[in-house]
């Protein structure tokens, strides 16, 4: 049943709506994180976080369901979980071959001891981003738990991403496989640095600063952790799978397999504060 609406009124309406959309895009694009629409965005995240949390709690198998219930409001089991995460991160850090290289530098040894303890909050992944073109996860911790935008997020396997949006009791994390994610990385053996960029469902790419760097297949890449950077140092990003030489340029690009299996990501750790001494 098609309506024969008056063409001129319809066109006027559509033009107004298109203008309103364009104005909204401009305001939000320029407003950035403090724009006027971010408040509504946070509200939406609260609602979606609550919904996704509710659904994921029902859908998980019974065993996990009861474990989840036990975690809620229980400090003791959360402490246990945190301890396990920290232990796993410690073991992983020690396995990294970068330890062998940095032992030669006194200053680096001091820093390494500092970096073994990460302070933060453990969280459960309750949902994915709803669109087809963003690589995010929603977690069940938010502002009330001390989480703020830009905090780094890790898991037992390695670097996960960083917080991009926070509401009262849930947060949104952008994964390192998102094409808009850029992480300063360092090759474990040579110490050469480069920028690690997400490539959706493909391997990550690492743009090396120095094209003459020597690379070994399967070599680990860790966060380089500059003071002004987003991520703490020594966190495993991935392993080198092969190198891609761009014809006609002087740059060297590596393909990295991410350390974290994002399809099976269930528990993460948001780094909220400076490392324990």
């Amino acid at each position, binding site marked *: *049943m*098609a*309506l*024969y*609406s008056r063409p001129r*009124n*319809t066109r006027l*309406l*559509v033009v107004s*709506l*298109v203008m*309103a*959309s*364009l*104005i*909204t*895009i*401009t*305001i*939000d*694009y320029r407003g950035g994180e403090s724009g006027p*629409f971010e408040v*509504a*965005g946070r*509200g*939406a*995240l609260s609602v*979606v976080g609550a*919904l*996704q949390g509710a*659904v994921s709690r029902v859908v998980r198998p019974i065993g996990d369901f009861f474990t989840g219930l036990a975690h809620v409001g229980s400090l003791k089991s959360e402490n246990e979980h945190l301890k396990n995460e920290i232990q796993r991160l410690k073991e992983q850090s020690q396995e990294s071959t970068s330890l062998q290289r940095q032992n030669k530098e006194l200053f680096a040894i001091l820093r390494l001891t500092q970096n073994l303890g990460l302070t933060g909050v453990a969280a459960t992944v309750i*949902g*994915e*981003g*709803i*669109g*087809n*073109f*963003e690589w*995010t996860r929603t977690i069940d911790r938010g502002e009330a738990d001390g989480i703020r935008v830009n905090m780094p997020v890790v898991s037992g396997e390695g670097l996960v991403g960083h917080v*991009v*949006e926070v509401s009262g009791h849930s947060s*949104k994390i*952008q994964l390192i496989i998102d*094409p*808009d994610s850029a992480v300063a990385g360092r090759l474990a053996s040579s110490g050469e640095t480069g920028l690690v960029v997400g490539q*959706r*469902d493909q391997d990550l790419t690492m743009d090396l600063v120095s094209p003459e760097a020597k690379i070994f297949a399967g070599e680990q890449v860790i966060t380089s952790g500059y003071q002004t950077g987003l991520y703490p140092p020594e966190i495993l990003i991935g392993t080198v799978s092969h190198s891609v030489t761009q014809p006609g340029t002087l740059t060297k690009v590596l393909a990295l397999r991410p350390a974290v299996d994002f399809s099976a990501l269930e528990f993460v750790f948001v780094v909220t504060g400076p490392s324990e001494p």
Partner: protein
Amino acid sequence: MRRTLAWTAVVLTGLVLQSTAFAQVKLGGAKPDLVYLVTIVLAFLEGPTSGATAGFFGGMAEDFLLNLPKGITALTLTIVGYSVGATRQYMVTPSPLLPVAMVGAATTLGIVFNQLVTFLLGQHPGTFYVLKIALLAGLYNAILTPILFPVIRRVAEASRAK
């Protein structure tokens, strides 16, 4: 007034389903987009004016859940809603495949347009990936149409009856 409430409920339900149930169930790596589906079906049933309006508000609502500048999906769906409503008036086949085909085609074109706008705003979608996802999402939406179309049409008729 009743109509507005009914359509708002339909769009919001689509959005909720999109965030929860359909966030996990993928077709070849693509998720459907129920807000596109609802907008296109609405435009199909009610014409270009309702299509454009529903597209604007549904798209804006979806924008608030995404990690992108707000307004892009509103823009896309306003245009999609208007176009579907306007062209639908010239198609007179009673075939039930018509809404399925329109949903599939309009979803695919809408997603490509949407990603083009995000590209202009500095995101990096990746041409091949966009095309692959747009086609798969269009297909997924088309598959869901025979199930959801009768439901939406019931709502439309119920809210219209006086």
